[in-house]
């Protein structure tokens, strides 16, 4: 049995060398090609000085090159760290510095973005997969160099406890934090999901999410584990529902995994009644609640598919799931997040840390083989996230999810919301505190409040209100531009208003409830911009 992620690729290459491992935009790599190319990349990286335990950044959009990068980096003994291509260079640089990333794998199409990133004063020593010169002191080598690099078996001596990848998510202090996963936690999740959904090598799994988003790990790791094919959905298709529907049909996808909003758009605007999506047998969704009315519409449009709501913060991979019944009741209750995967223990605790009575809300704690190693370089956060609890006659480590849940009378778990001020919008985690910190970084801003409110189609939108040190010195457009330079695009508020005065509660705190009410009834807003 493979104990390391790249071994799953090599095993599939030995069993079904000519079976396609990954497809994107009509191009494909067989398992044999993926195994060979990732092996040559590993040898190239080793020659550049990459060693066991190093972190190597992936500076490439999802696609064939990025897939080779993931496995090549891990074969070299390092952990891959996907950079968010849509986030500004300054934020990517923050990740490079935080994680001590000295090596990058890139692609020629992103040469300009790479040059901009390297100007941010980052500790990068070498870039593999780029054409042309880089700034002084940074070694460059092309994909052609990789292809002609002699095949040498790199054996970094990894065990399953070694670091496999680091995913950066929003942090409450304005600094993103890196969630570290081992080969063991990733494979435990891939095995649980592959067994639950009965994936086989004949499956064709979508990759809709970007690589820095933890949904992507199921798309790749489950597929390689069973020798199936991952079909990368190009970014343009993720923005145009009718083209996404055409791709699902043309690629004969059997498994589609994405966020509810994308599925809502697919059923409302994808013209799926004109498509033959018969091969689609599993639709998996997670990241935020799926409104029943759109889920019901999608289920009746895809009568041959089964649907599963999957739940789990990045820190623990997937931990619970709920396979929907064929006829979804008319109620407005949220879709449950279901039951834990086999091997996952849960406990729901109240403010006092003790288990709540059945049916009462509380924070979900989980003990699972899929849990993270911790946060990169942040033992302070580890101390808050991990908790050793008694378990029968023994004790073991649980992860505090920070999510509030409730157990229904039928035993199924229901997600109620975040314990802190983190929100999920279109599947992305956003710390409202981070948005406020970024707003307050502008010299003209006196106070700032970011808040989320429900919008049509069951998703959330985020808005922010600020007051200024002096009236009229800056407008919403300039503040948006300021945020765009600091935050990923999805963390920039959908609307920003400048107020004369921030509403306050009796105790002097910013009254966010009033801000939300004002935003829902804009006539009441006293804006001066």
């Amino acid at each position, binding site marked *: 049995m493979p104990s390391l992620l790249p071994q799953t690729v090599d095993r599939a290459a030995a069993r079904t060398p000519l079976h396609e491992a990954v497809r994107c935009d009509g191009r494909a790599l067989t398992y044999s090609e993926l195994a060979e190319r990732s092996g040559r990349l590993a040898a190239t990286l080793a020659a550049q000085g990459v060693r066991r335990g190093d972190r190597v950044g992936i500076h490439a959009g999802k696609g064939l090159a990025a897939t080779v990068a993931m496995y090549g980096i891990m074969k070299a003994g390092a952990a891959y760290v996907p950079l968010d291509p*849509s986030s500004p260079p300054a934020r990517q640089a923050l990740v490079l510095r935080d994680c001590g990333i000295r090596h990058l794998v890139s692609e020629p199409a992103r040469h300009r973005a790479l040059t901009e990133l390297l100007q941010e004063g980052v500790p990068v020593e070498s870039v593999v997969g780029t054409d042309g010169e880089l700034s002084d002191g940074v070694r460059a080598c092309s994909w052609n160099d990789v292809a002609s690099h002699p095949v040498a078996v790199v054996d970094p001596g990894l065990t399953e406890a070694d670091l496999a990848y680091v995913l950066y998510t929003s942090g409450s202090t304005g600094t993103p934090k890196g969630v570290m996963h081992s080969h063991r936690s990733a494979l435990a999740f891939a095995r649980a999901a592959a067994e639950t959904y009965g994936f086989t090598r004949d499956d064709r799994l979508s990759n809709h999410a970007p690589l820095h988003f933890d949904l992507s790990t199921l798309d790749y790791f489950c597929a390689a584990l069973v020798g199936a094919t991952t079909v990368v959905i*190009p*970014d*343009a*298709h*993720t*923005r*145009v*529902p*009718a*083209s996404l529907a*055409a791709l699902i049909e043309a690629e004969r996808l059997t498994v589609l995994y994405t966020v509810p*909003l*994308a599925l809502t*758009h697919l059923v*409302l*605007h*994808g*013209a799926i009644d*004109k498509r033959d999506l018969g091969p689609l047998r599993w639709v998996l969704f997670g990241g935020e609640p799926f409104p029943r009315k759109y889920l019901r519409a999608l289920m009746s449009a895809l009568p041959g598919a089964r649907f599963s709501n999957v739940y789990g913060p990045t820190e623990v991979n997937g931990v619970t799931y709920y396979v929907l019944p064929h006829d979804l009741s008319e109620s407005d209750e949220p879709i449950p997040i279901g039951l834990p995967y086999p091997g996952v223990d849960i406990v729901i605790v109240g403010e006092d840390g003790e288990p709540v009575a059945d049916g009462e809300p509380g924070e979900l704690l989980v003990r699972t083989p899929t849990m993270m190693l911790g946060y990169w370089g942040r033992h302070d956060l580890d101390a808050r996230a991990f908790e050793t609890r008694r378990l029968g006659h023994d004790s073991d480590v649980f992860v505090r999810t920070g999510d509030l849940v409730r157990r229904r009378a039928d035993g199924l778990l229901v997600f109620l919301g975040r314990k802190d001020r983190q929100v999920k919008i279109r599947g992305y985690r956003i710390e409202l505190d981070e948005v406020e910190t970024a707003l307050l970084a502008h010299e003209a801003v006196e106070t700032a409040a970011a808040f989320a409110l429900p919008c049509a189609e069951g998703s959330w939108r985020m808005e922010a209100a600020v007051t200024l040190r002096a009236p009229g010195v800056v407008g919403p*457009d*300039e503040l*948006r*531009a300021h945020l*765009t*330079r600091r935050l990923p*695009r999805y963390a*920039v508020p959908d609307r920003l208003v400048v107020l004369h005065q921030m509403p306050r509660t009796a105790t002097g705190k910013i009254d966010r409830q009033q801000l939300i009410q004002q935003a829902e009834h804009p006539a009441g807003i006293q804006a001066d911009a």
Partner: protein
Amino acid sequence: MRERLARYIAEALLDPSARTENGIAADEDLLGSGLLDSLGVMSLVFFIEQEVGMDIPAEDVTIENFQTLDAIEAYLARRQAPE
């Protein structure tokens, strides 16, 4: 029409930081580059329907028809041409 589309995209849909003095080129990729997200595409379709006074069926909102300003113009010309 192209100017009106370009102005609408630049003023209503783009991040301020993505606006440039030269505006949006006729052959600039609106989709793959991330200039528009899925909600932006919906808004653009709605805007065109209002401007041109025709319904755009969902199956016509494809990458081929909406990737660039040129493509949108060609699509609208096909729709408006007599059968």
